């Protein structure tokens, strides 16, 4: 069992409230996932010429030293903003290329997200602890996803926690379990997709990364996932300008969508949505099996 929440603003009016509203939702999903929690927050977008990379390391990480090494060898203009054992790196140029350098030269430092707006923070522990640690309630932004994990098929570590990055400004959270993830992981590895864990949800993320790298749109990638992923899932997928929700054809795993004139929210259960201002008058419905629901802000 796991819990998923997603919140997307239709206009900028509520942006200052994003972190507080998402935190209230995430706490409601504690019983569904007390092992670890994570959030992907879309905020403070940088321009097309720049990239943002979220780094994660052990609790004893020396961020000043890491910053100095990045400035000396990779990008002299880079800024680094530590937040507990994560840090957001901002630099000019291509994020994926920079990530290659970081992975090769900074052992012990993991990359949780790459893009222009996305930041991913995730950690072991109860949702309220994770929220406090990363000061989620203070974060403003346009949209965000959150996940609470009850581990069923692989270890409880930071790296096994959700959300999983699936590409530039893309991420995935999952409630369910996949049964063909081992074979699919081998196939994707042969295609050049890298995996850090034995987690099934990371394979779903890697699958989307692979399809997108072949030129598929996000919707096309999700559509083909219905055929290629075997198992139970409710997915929420974050993108730079929006988010999407999809359930498997059997639809055992719960999902609720709600919409007002100001926001669209998604959760495993209504009680998370009940925390939001205006929820009493929201349109509320259950997403149909194997149907893609997506929202996108006009660029």
């Amino acid at each position: 069992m796991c819990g998923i929440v997603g919140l997307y603003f239709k206009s900028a009016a509520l942006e200052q409230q994003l972190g507080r509203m998402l935190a209230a939702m995430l706490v409601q999903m504690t019983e569904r996932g007390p092992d670890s929690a994570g959030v992907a927050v879309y905020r403070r977008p940088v321009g097309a010429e720049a990239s943002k990379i979220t780094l994660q390391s052990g609790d004893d990480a020396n961020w000043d030293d890491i910053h100095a090494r990045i400035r000396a060898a990779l990008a002299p203009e880079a800024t680094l903003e530590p937040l507990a054992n994560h840090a957001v790196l901002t630099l000019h140029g291509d994020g994926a290329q920079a990530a290659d350098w970081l992975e090769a030269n900074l052992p012990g430092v993991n990359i949780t997200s790459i893009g222009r707006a996305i930041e991913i923070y995730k950690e072991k522990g109860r949702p309220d602890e994770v929220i406090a640690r990363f000061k989620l309630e203070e974060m403003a932004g346009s949209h965000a996803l959150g996940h609470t994990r009850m581990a069923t098929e692989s270890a409880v570590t930071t790296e096994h926690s959700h959300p999983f990055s699936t590409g530039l400004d893309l991420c995935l959270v999952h409630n369910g379990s996949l049964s063909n993830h081992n074979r699919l992981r081998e196939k994707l590895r042969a295609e050049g997709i890298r995996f850090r864990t034995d987690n099934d949800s990371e394979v779903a993320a890697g699958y989307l990364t692979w399809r997108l790298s072949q030129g598929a749109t996000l919707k096309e990638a999700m559509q083909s996932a219905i055929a290629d992923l075997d198992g139970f899932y409710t997915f929420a997928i974050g993108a730079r300008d929006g988010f999407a929700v999809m359930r498997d054809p059997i639809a055992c795993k719960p999902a609720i969508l709600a919409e007002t004139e100001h926001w669209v929210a998604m959760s495993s259960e209504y009680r998370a949505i009940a925390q939001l201002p205006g929820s009493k008058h929201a349109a509320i419905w259950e997403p149909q099996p194997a149907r893609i629901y997506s929202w996108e802000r006009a660029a």
Partner: protein
Amino acid sequence: MRPNHGGESARRQNGEALRFDLKDSPVRELNRALHERGAEGRSIRVANPGGKHNVAVGARFRGEVFIDGHVGYYCAGMNQNAAIVVNGNAGPGLAENMMSGQVRVKGDASQYGGATAHGGLLVIEGNAAARCGISMKGADIVVGGSIGHLSAFMAQSGRLVVCGDAGDALGDSIYEARIYLRGKAAGLGADCIEKPMEASHREELAYLLDQAELGGMKAGDFRRFGSARQLYHFQIDHLGAY
């Protein structure tokens, strides 16, 4: 006996309504009152359910419970005797294993509503999601809207009335429950077939529609589905259908 709900019976209650505000008090306090017979003769009003789980589970008393808002998992499970109204939507497992009484949801219900229910009447005025009435064992379920896939799976007895459409695999491996469908089924499950509407079927359907108080529904607009009784005993020729 026609269960009471709404304002009609408020006049008939002795004493004032018992009130529970789930914003402040735990669900267990409400349920304890429903388990004990002491509350009988009074109505119970529940405010701010906020999608909480297990609201009004295991009720045993003869009386009304009015829940003003949306509820989470397993609302009204194992109900006996009580007439429970949810003025909102219900999460998964609504009225699971109900024994008697009436449960009415004014909005939509999530998956496996009325699962394994033995008796009583479950009315969902909106839509019901997947697996509605799965393994039902004698209850009556009336849905004002449409139902999701795999509804009435292995349903043993009782009646499932659907005023809208049904999802795929309706009545898969059904035993002796009867399905009345006004709209279309996306597909029938294994061993589920359409059966003729006899006068006795129209009569029982008219009674159920009247009980459900949905209004504007005519028994003549419905079709009946039930078991072809080909999967009762194992036959090697049917292996693919199991």
